[in-house]
């Protein structure tokens, strides 16, 4: 395992945002000049139902310290039912990741609507702080296991 300096640790967080709610919410946060940490990398998707649970494993493998999945509130999905499937999938995946030994804070999911710019900012702040407190992720990370 590589020895890393924890004092200046800046977490790298991957956020999957649905085009119709969360991405619009992030847009609104930008328009309102809200400040949130730049530790987040956003991937825009048509729907949170597009997020294959394997994306999460892949993100940890490729070196992300945390993963956030965001979508419309249940009942508000642009495609009627996409986020209901997302909810089931990630309720299960969250527990599997914990069972595999990945800390529970490293994977999170939130519903953020297009008008909830404040909630978007608060979520990013909270997730970043939680992962900063945990330190860098070495579990299931390619670079650390095969250095």
């Amino acid at each position: 395992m590589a020895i890393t300096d924890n004092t200046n640790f800046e977490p790298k967080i991957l956020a999957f945002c649905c085009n119709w709610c969360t991405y619009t919410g992030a847009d609104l946060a930008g328009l309102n000049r809200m400040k949130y940490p730049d530790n987040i990398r956003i991937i825009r998707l048509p729907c949170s139902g597009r997020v294959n649970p394997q994306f999460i494993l892949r993100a940890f493998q490729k070196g992300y310290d945390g993963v956030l999945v965001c979508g419309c509130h249940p009942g508000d999905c642009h495609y009627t039912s996409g986020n209901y499937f997302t909810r089931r999938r990630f309720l299960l995946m969250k527990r599997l990741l914990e069972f595999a030994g990945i800390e529970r804070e490293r994977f999170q999911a939130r519903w953020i609507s297009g008008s909830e710019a404040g909630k978007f900012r608060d979520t990013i702040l909270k997730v970043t702080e939680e992962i900063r407190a945990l330190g860098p992720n070495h579990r299931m990370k390619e670079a650390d296991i095969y250095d």
Partner: protein
Amino acid sequence: MTDIQNILRERAHALLDEGKIACFIGWGATRFNERAMPKFIFKAEESSSLVYNEHCLNTLAKYTLDFQYGAEKVGLATRGCEARAINRLIADGRLSRDKVYLLGIPCQGMLEHGKPADKCVFCRHRNPVVYDELLGEKTIELQNPPRFESVLELENKSDTERYDFWQKQFAKCIRCYACRNVCPACNCLECYTEQYRTGWQGKQANTLENSVFGFTRAYHIGDRCIECGECERICPMEIPLMKVNRKLVKDVEELFGVEESGLSEDEIHALGSYNKEDLEEFM
């Protein structure tokens, strides 16, 4: 058991003789006394080589897929695990019920290395849940075997202990994919592990990719696992795969109220459906 063996031979003989089935899938003897192997009977006179004893460990249902494109029916010796596997294949759209003729066998549990097999200790369906005819009397089912005990034990440990446990287990994996090949729920026409251009899964057999494969496979079958225990039995490296499968079965039961899979041929998968009243953790 010899009674059942005799009836099984008789019925297989009759069915092949009448031309009702083109092949009968059962168990045959091996050169070891304590081992039986899958046996495919194509001629009526061969049916005397069928064997049924306490060493018939293999769950045979997945072999029916080899006959799915033929015109004829195939006969199958069907215990609890085979019956649920047949339901699994039908519910997944891989097999049609009129392609198989099921000779139901009430199972007493099998032996592996002289003691009750791991796959049979926690079995809740010794009698077949689906069959065309039943050979012998129904057996008494095990009452609530403690199948989630080992899962709970691991759940109560710390993250680090769990991570180390699984990494140690998957370090042994040689990626032979026997678990996938034997699993009745792993019935995709093309497995994601063979899609070499998509980048879903690294091919290298190292601890990390092995564990990613292990957890992904478990998740793929999470809501459809019939708990036949074949993956764990077949694993040449003795990885406790049922521990992660049972974890998912347990969670599906707790979260979505779908208790067991493979009990009927028109069941709806837990992850292929939703309920508006599902648990809300992501608010």
